[in-house]
């Protein structure tokens, strides 16, 4: 079967289009900053940026003017403070007006489940008694045909593009994740085009040695980008730690419009890609974040 390996530049050029609904998933873990930066470099426009937790990467996409709408459930810099890029867009229409469409985590998860299952909606027990029910007209209700109970519903979410960062993948896009998995599987199956970004390219034999670990099968993958350290300042369990200092520092960097734009200019437009980003970051930081070794006890797949 065809090798699907592309550079990040090629993958974003070919699979991310202006106006696309896009999801770069990853709950704290495996957030693909490398892809976000390339999207900014290619000046993609009018994206509908979907994600449970917009995080710093969507903060940057918004500040760079790539986004027309954010679909989300928790918008903050975890443990630190707000996302100032998003706030400037929502509160002051800067650099452009950005619409928001807001759910809870469960609501977003349910939207991706429906999307992956090609169901038009999913029902769940949340939103009742909350103001979101009034503010978001996409949240509706349905009556159970067995118990007559009323449950809330959310519509399926089927983005045009999913970008999923993984620890290891083969050249066909068979991708394995361990540690936090968030809602990546559902985001991938729900999307029309899927870019896998891997810390490490492995032979298919490695994947096939542990098939239960495969979160996303190559058959739904359009492109594989090999991008070590591509999740920094997020992390990849077993590869490198979360750069908590970066998140702490982002508070000051992003609070001020000019300093945030300087960051984008220096660290995104100022480098050609992840290799230069790593060089700029410096070996000390990279070394400090290097993961220690703590291996799983292997299991036997023989019969």
């Amino acid at each position, binding site marked *: 079967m065809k090798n699907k390996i592309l550079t990040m530049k090629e993958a974003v050029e070919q699979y991310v289009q202006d106006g696309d609904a896009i999801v770069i998933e990853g709950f704290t873990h495996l957030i693909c900053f490398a892809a976000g930066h390339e999207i900014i470099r290619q000046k993609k426009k009018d994206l509908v940026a979907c994600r449970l937790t917009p995080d710093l990467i969507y903060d940057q996409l918004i500040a760079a003017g790539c986004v027309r709408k954010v679909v989300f459930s*928790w918008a*903050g810099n975890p443990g*630190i403070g707000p996302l100032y890029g*998003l706030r400037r867009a929502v509160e002051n229409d800067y650099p452009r007006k950005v619409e928001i469409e807001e759910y809870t985590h*469960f609501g977003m998860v349910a939207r991706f489940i429906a999307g992956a299952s090609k169901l038009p909606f999913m029902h769940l*027990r949340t939103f*009742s008694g909350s103001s*979101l029910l009034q503010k978001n007209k996409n949240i509706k209700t349905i009556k159970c045909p067995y118990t007559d109970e009323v449950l809330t519903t959310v519509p399926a979410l089927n983005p045009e593009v999913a970008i999923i960062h993984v620890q290891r993948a083969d050249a066909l896009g068979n991708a394995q994740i361990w540690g936090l*998995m*968030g809602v990546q599987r559902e985001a991938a199956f729900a999307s029309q085009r899927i870019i896998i970004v891997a810390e490490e390219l492995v032979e298919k034999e490695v994947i096939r040695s542990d098939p239960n670990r495969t979160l996303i099968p190559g058959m739904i993958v359009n492109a594989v980008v090999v991008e070590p350290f591509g999740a920094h300042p997020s992390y990849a369990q077993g590869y490198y730690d979360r750069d908590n200092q970066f998140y702490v520092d982002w508070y000051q960097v992003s609070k001020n419009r000019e300093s945030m734009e300087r960051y984008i200019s220096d660290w995104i437009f100022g480098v050609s890609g992840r290799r230069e980003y790593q060089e700029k970051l410096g070996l000390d930081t990279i070394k400090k974040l290097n993961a220690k070794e703590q291996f799983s006890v292997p299991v036997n797949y023989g019969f």
Partner: protein
Amino acid sequence: MMGSYTSSELMVARASRELKDGEVVFVGIGLPNLACNLARRLQAPNLVLIYESGAVGAVPSRLPLSIGDPCLVTDSISVCSMVEVFNYYLQGGLIDVGFLGGAQVDRFGNINSTVIGDYNHPKVRLPGSGGACEISTHAKKIIIILKQNKKTFPEKIDFVTSPGFINEQNQRNKYKMQGRGPDLVITDFGVYRFSSENYTMFLSEIHPGISVEDVKENVSWHIDISPALVSTNPPTKEELKIISELDPERIHLR
């Protein structure tokens, strides 16, 4: 600072005493995380910590800055996807205790962590629900922790992110919520519980050095005071020692 401990340390210690061994706790970052890990070191070594990121039975070896820190995964019992966290654990009714914070809480324990001002033209845009709305809906018991003043305890909150009892009739039954609602509210002034008659908050414990007047001045509505009001037990030396080990840089103890 209250004597030889801070109000944050008192809040953490007080919260941790609510946790029983073997309970399953849905943990947030910050003071709740400290409270749970304090309880694990004392009366509840088998407390099961669940984070909405999917880590079950986490045993964090360092202070997690975020709810998805890698230290919550290493040596945990199980890591599952968020589909399972929300469908099977939370909605499935497996959570004994859920912690919630927020920018505002009203007399019925309804919490706002979404927006200050109008939703469409916010004065301050806050992070939003995350999993808070479903925690408040499904966890059997809710403990609310936040710093108290007239703004955080307003007459009316600007947005209900996480429903408490909703109003004096307790609308939870109407919505068939399996969680019983907020059990207590822990602030830097005292501990509040809710009347089983009108589901309204009342002061149940008052922190050492705080007067009832202080409390009243920092609530926007007329707060009821329990006739059986007691003084909160201050943190013990042991509690303080463990807390400072858990957060040596005092990141969450400011």
